[in-house]
């Protein structure tokens, strides 16, 4: 009788120890500062996920070449979560409890940030992330999340909606289609835009939600085409944006404008998959390759050195990843530590200059700025709105060129 009892008590004690003690490494290590990342390097989010990690890598290389952070080299400890939320959660658990990393960077995208940020909060680790802006990320009121983009997901399509509503009444579209993936970031962006467009009298003629595993877009294209929608707001991540363009083009459907929540900003892979069909596609983002923000030129040059490609394109997500590094570096330098509570407190109180511009957060880690409207024109991504933005380098092409 005695042995099982001892075993049960032992197990209970062990479990209590696992649950109760945060294993945060708050002291500066003797060796390199290790930063843990679980990233969507394969699976349905692999293109943008890979791009974010490239941004992390460019940042780490620059920091190390300049002598490191507080005199320590930085080292990225990366796991591939295959775009699966459960895998990402267990990998962050592992990074904190087994690998005992000093700092954490977030994954792509909201769908993975929502569950993994709970792990970070449990261990009181600052979760600086470049791609989780859906309302659900902030709903649980964690104090350790910092979303490194200009604004939250609901505001992403604002510049597009503003532009559409600002068109002269004879040019303004009368109807819109909303084919969208079942994803928290996508629904936040799409619902916000749809409500404003409907309020302005632009009729919704198609709205359908498809699973992330959707592999056939022919029926979607047939239905959107028959709806004769003037404009399309595609609620997409990446592969589905590519598939939508291909399917619309196959049925010769020509909307006057097409906006994707995500996809066109993953510039290299998007261009590679679609060629000239990228032209006219719009998206909302916080960054553009030829941005005039301080440090951007060096980031772009170093990215292309590390990841050369024939079109010389830098994906938007790489800039988001790089910005995450800039934010973390600023906090570590300012607090002179890798104490995650100090880092979080500092970030709540300060704004940080990034290649996406200066970003500051409210008490829940929500950034307070606004997005840019971007459009592919002649195979180059341009900032086309809002008017007066220093990075605006072209006017929107509307209606967009035919596919």
């Amino acid at each position, binding site marked *: 009788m005695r042995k099982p009892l001892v075993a049960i008590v032992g197990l209970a004690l062990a479990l209590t120890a696992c649950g109760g003690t945060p294993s945060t490494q708050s002291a500066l290590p003797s060796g390199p500062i290790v930063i843990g990342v679980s990233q969507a*390097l*394969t*699976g*349905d989010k*692999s*293109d943008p996920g890979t791009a974010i990690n490239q941004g992390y890598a460019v940042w780490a290389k620059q920091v190390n070449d300049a002598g490191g952070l507080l005199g320590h080299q930085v080292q990225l400890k990366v796991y591939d979560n*295959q*775009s699966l939320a459960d895998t990402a959660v267990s990998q962050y658990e592992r990074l904190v409890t087994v690998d005992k990393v000093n700092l954490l960077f977030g994954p792509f995208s909201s769908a993975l940030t929502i569950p993994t940020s709970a792990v970070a909060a449990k261990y009181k680790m600052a979760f600086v992330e470049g791609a989780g802006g859906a309302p659900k990320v902030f709903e649980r009121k964690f104090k350790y999340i910092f979303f490194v983009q200009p604004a939250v997901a609901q505001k992403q399509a604002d510049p597009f909606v503003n532009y559409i509503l600002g068109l002269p009444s004879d040019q303004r579209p009368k109807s819109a289609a909303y084919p969208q993936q*079942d994803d928290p970031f996508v629904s936040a962006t799409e619902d916000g835009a749809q409500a404003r467009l409907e309020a302005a009298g632009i009729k919704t003629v198609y709205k*359908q*939600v*498809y*699973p992330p*595993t*959707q*592999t*056939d877009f*022919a*029926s*979607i294209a*047939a*239905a959107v*085409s*028959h709806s004769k929608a003037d404009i399309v707001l595609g609620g997409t991540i990446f*592969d589905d944006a590519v*598939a939508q363009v*291909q399917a619309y*083009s*196959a*049925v*010769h459907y020509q909307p006057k404008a097409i906006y994707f929540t995500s996809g066109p900003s993953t510039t290299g892979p998007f261009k590679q*998959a679609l060629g000239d069909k990228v032209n006219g596609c719009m998206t909302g983002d916080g960054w553009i390759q030829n941005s005039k923000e301080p440090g951007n030129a060096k980031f772009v040059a170093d990215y292309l050195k590390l990841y050369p490609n024939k079109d010389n394109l830098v994906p938007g997500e790489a800039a988001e990843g790089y910005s995450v590094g800039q934010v973390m570096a600023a906090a570590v330098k300012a607090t002179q530590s890798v104490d995650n509570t100090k880092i979080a407190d500092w970030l709540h109180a300060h704004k940080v200059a990034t290649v996406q511009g200066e970003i500051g957060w409210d008490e829940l880690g929500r950034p307070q700025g606004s997005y840019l409207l971007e459009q592919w024109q002649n195979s180059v991504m341009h900032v086309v709105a809002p008017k007066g933005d220093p990075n605006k380098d072209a006017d929107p092409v509307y209606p967009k060129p035919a596919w």
Partner: protein
Amino acid sequence: MSPGLFAQSLVLGVLTGGMYALMAAGLTLIFGVMKVINVAHAAMIVMGAYLSLTLFRHLGIDPLVSVVLLVPVFLGLGALVQWGVVNRLAERDITLTVLMTFGFAIILEGLQGAIWTSSYQGIKTAYSLESFRLFTLYVPVVRLISAGVSLVLLAGLYVMLTFTSLGRAIRATIQNRTAAQLVGVNVRLVTTISFAIGIAIAGAAGPLLGMLFTFYPATHWLWIGKLLAIVVLGGLGSLRGAFVAAMLLGIAEQVTSVTIALDWAPMIFYVFLFGVLVVRPQGLFGTVERQSL
């Protein structure tokens, strides 16, 4: 919904259904001859898609050419797997083959992930996005080609089964294994050949799947569900049944996506399946086996 859109979804449904028929044909043939449910069937089709993708990317071989190249490869592979593994298990306990093919599906999925990663893939040729207009309807060229190739292959299979002595031996084995053996059919050989043909058809379907749909290692779970629904609905072991069920479900899926909702489309397979099984448990073209006199 406009009649135009309905007609468009019918066209897409018929073309997609033709492709489903080819994918399900091998599965139903293998079940007919061996009473083995090959859970790895869809994983083998996806393997065909990956091989075709590799041939296309690195050697520029058109996926339609790789259909021809993959058939003998998968034929040999099928014969080897049947002779080496499936047959041994089937003779001991037929239910073990379900576990075995399930395990084989997982191995194939892991292998695909290791070689090609789990990123989404598609085979995009120069004619991938072409379509032509038929009255008010658009007919996507790739879908028409794949339906055409499927039909040709299925017709070939039908002719082989109906008019050749091998076909007669296969049909005899499907109908009554013992009786076939009694009249001199080499049942073991026929079984191996049938299994191999079933896998060869999966190999041929691979490049077509790769041209039409996005695929990744885990996609085979989505497909095997659909394919099992098709072969059960058509009547296990019935090629004609699989064809009719594939058409029916292909059309129902497309029409549902445009008339009701996209997320209803995958469910429609099982709604049909339950409906038919309640009314006609042997499936549309299945026969009731007499268990005892």
